């Protein structure tokens, strides 16, 4: 079956809904909203119906997304948009429209797929919660907002859904609002995101004022024709837009909200903080990548940046975030927090890829990461559920036998995250490293390899401590496997974690971003049609497995090397730190190595100071900038404000009139200048 045949087959099947793909996209967007409205208005009292509504809507959306994916992703149909006028006020004209192209259809699949699985999982996890329907309203609303971001064809619409994602995630993180920490975490997430959105909106307004449009396609076209359209603000505008991504994708220094957000229910963490919301920032950067392809230009006040481009800064921030978060992850004992920092680190990886000029690599990693990180979070949720909401890994242990399905899938997810060939994580990580190397960022490449080693280390530590050995607490000893509603999503998610990269996803994305540039890397240099892939799947496995090593050996070998080193350290340190049933077997091995202390010393000499430094920096920012100004401002700064205010707002009429008169005089004097 060639491309056209596939396309025709799909369009023939489509009329049941509509012959126009953009209508399908609208329908996909509205389904979760309808579900949320339906639950709110009709079945608010019934747990069963609420879950059914929500899941049915999301699964339908997933199926439709798959149809679109076949049409646009695999079949090489041209991107379409279907705008309708939302607003025409003078020069400010905004159309609402959906963009259906390779990028958005892929992301649609990710969002609806993970969302559907998380919802099924939630039926088990949230069983017995008295606000069960409210939870599904929140999930549906969130899915709707997220799909809006994915499909938006202009900045204003994207920002609209961007904020809606903020609001709905605020509702979900603060779902257990009786818990003070959850309510605070929700607020912190919302506020920190707003800090980023401030820059985002300013960037949008600047772009609109300079280019006269907010539509992605038009902007891309205009920028292509006149690369100097944004004048000296080109790089500033790019960075301001990036600020939005910094908030959503939790890049330093706006990363502080993500670890705290783990106070929300675990399915929420899996959906929001692993696969979708935090990926929105990266997705947005990829969507507006054309903005970063213009000539670097700084206004006079920022001329000291010289030839450093916006992308360079983005790449630097991404790498720093990745490093920082990896260091933090090593220190955590809370299973969800380890995963949270790991997510941060991987997001930094993706942003770094964008900064290196590899949006395709970033999207590739985003896609694979969505699969295995959702798997890991849901696995963690399964563990937490089984251990009666115990989250400390040192109070777990020995879960391998008690929860075999969870263990197996969790291990697969870990291996994928660590980048074990031929699991999906290996290829996407390889693509990121290659992007750094190919585009002349050797330092970032080095950091990437280092972070890869650290990733393996902390993930393996988690698995070794939590699953192997024996139960270190009452709860862990009596853990039992979770119900089917929870384990099946794990099993299903394990499939893409393993096999996702066996379809030529990298080429697919490269093709989307760089068709005109001939700038192709990754495995294989031409687009392979889907049909051909299927037919030759097994034949290709061999090819796929070894292709990275042939094509660009340096990143592939170094990446694998990092994996081995990280694993080695983890095993050396933690296998023996356990009182697990295998001390005899491995005791001699560890003693034979005799250098466990050696690692400890290296660790103390290098990692702890580095970690402390970074942690202190992050903590300083958290406490004084985010906390002091926004979140915890209630205390010190408010006191000061109150005192200053008392001088002006004394209650005395004549003080008021004095300030009035002085105000008039001052305004005249200033304005006369």
């Amino acid at each position, binding site marked *: 079956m060639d491309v056209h045949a596939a396309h025709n087959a799909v369009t023939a099947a489509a009329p049941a809904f509509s012959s126009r793909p953009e209508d399908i996209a609208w329908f996909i967007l509205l389904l979760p909203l309808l579900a949320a409205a339906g639950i709110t208005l009709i079945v608010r009292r019934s747990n069963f119906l609420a879950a059914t509504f929500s899941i049915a809507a999301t699964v339908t959306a997933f199926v439709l997304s798959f149809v679109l994916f076949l049409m646009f992703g695999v079949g090489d149909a041209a991107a379409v948009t279907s705008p309708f006028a939302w607003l025409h006020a003078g020069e400010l004209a905004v159309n609402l429209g959906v963009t259906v192209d390779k990028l958005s259809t892929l992301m649609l699949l990710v969002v609806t797929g993970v969302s559907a699985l998380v919802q099924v999982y939630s039926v088990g996890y949230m069983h017995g919660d008295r606000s069960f329907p409210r939870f599904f309203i929140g999930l549906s609303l969130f899915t709707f907002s997220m799909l809006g971001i994915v499909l938006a064809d202009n900045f204003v619409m994207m920002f609209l859904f961007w904020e809606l994602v903020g609001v709905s995630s605020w509702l979900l993180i603060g779902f257990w609002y009786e818990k003070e920490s959850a309510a605070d975490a929700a607020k912190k997430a919302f506020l920190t995101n707003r800090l980023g959105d401030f820059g985002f909106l300013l960037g949008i307004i600047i772009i609109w004022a300079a280019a006269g449009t907010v539509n992605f396609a038009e902007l891309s076209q205009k920028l292509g024709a006149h690369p100097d359209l944004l004048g000296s603000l080109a790089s500033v505008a790019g960075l301001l837009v990036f600020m939005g991504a910094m908030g959503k994708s939790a890049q330093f220094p706006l990363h502080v909200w993500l670890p705290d957000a783990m106070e929300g229910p675990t399915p929420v963490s899996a959906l929001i903080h692993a696969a979708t919301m935090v990926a929105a920032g990266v997705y947005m950067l990829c969507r507006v990548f054309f903005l970063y392809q213009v000539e670097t230009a700084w206004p006079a006040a920022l001329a000291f940046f010289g030839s450093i481009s916006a992308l360079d800064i983005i790449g630097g921030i991404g790498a720093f975030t990745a490093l920082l978060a990896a260091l933090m992850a090593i220190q955590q004992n809370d299973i969800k927090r380890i995963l949270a920092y790991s997510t941060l680190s991987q997001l930094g990886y993706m942003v770094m890829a964008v900064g290196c000029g590899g949006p395709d690599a970033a999207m590739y990693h985003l896609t694979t990461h969505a699969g295995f990180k959702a798997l890991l979070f849901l696995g963690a949720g399964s563990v937490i559920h089984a251990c009666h909401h115990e989250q400390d890994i040192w109070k777990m242990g020995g879960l391998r036998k008690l929860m075999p399905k969870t263990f197996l899938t969790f291990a697969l997810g870990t291996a994928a995250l660590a980048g074990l060939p031929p699991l999906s994580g290996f290829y996407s990580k390889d693509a990121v490293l290659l992007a750094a190397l190919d585009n002349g960022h050797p330092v970032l490449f080095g950091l990437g390899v280092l972070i890869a080693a650290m990733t393996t280390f902390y993930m393996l530590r988690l698995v070794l401590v939590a699953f192997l050995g024996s139960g270190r607490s009452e709860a862990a000893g009596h853990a039992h496997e979770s119900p089917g509603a929870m384990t099946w999503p794990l099993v299903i998610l394990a499939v893409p974690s393993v096999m996702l990269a066996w379809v030529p996803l990298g080429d697919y994305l490269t093709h989307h971003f760089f068709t005109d540039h001939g700038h192709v890397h990754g495995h294989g240099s031409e687009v392979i049609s889907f049909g051909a892939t299927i037919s030759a799947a097994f034949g290709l496995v061999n090819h796929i497995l070894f292709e990275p090593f042939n094509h660009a050996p340096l990143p592939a070998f170094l990446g694998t090397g990092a994996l081995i080193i990280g694993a080695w350290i983890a095993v050396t340190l933690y296998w023996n730190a356990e009182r697990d049933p295998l001390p005899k077997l491995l005791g001699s091995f560890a003693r034979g190595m005799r250098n466990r202390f050696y690692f400890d010393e290296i660790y103390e000499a290098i990692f702890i100071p580095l970690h402390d430094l970074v942690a202190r920096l992050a903590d300083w920012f958290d406490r004084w900038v985010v906390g002091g100004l926004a979140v915890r401002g209630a205390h010190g700064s408010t006191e000061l404000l109150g005192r200053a205010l008392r001088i002006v707002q004394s209650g005395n009429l*004549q*003080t008021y009139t*004095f300030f009035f008169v002085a105000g008039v005089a001052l305004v005249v004097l200033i304005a006369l200048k």
Partner: protein
Amino acid sequence: MPALTDLLFYGFAGLALLFGFLCVANPLSRNPVTSAMFLVLTICSLAGLFVLLNAFFLAAVQVLVYAGAVMVLFLFVIMLLDLKEEERRKLNKVALGAGTVAVAVIAGILIRAVTSAKPAADKLVEGTTKPLGRILFTEYLLPFEILSLLLLVAMVGVILLSKKELK
């Protein structure tokens, strides 16, 4: 211009300013009644200036309404409240100083601004009853009618505010 009107201008202007000063900052008395009486005198001096500006009708209204009705109201309230001399509380010198400076700056700004004004025409218009009445009931009919609403508000307001709330 004949010298007499010049002298009259300086006379009325000087008196208006002197009485105005005595109204707001009388060094000898802090009694509100004194202030009110000096305000009456200021208003009458201003009426004199109005006459010099050919605004005869307004001069009359100024004396009748302002010096007559409005000031009577003031005096009435002063008597009603039985206000004694303003208490000599400790003055906040900083506040007073700041206030005086602010006023001086405003005065400076205003004087600088008004001395840049230029007379537009030197044709004379007579502000007598007839031309004023004509313009009032043609061009400015609508605001004139709205004044009646304003007076209604004042009436309702004053009755309700000054009445004692009966339990």
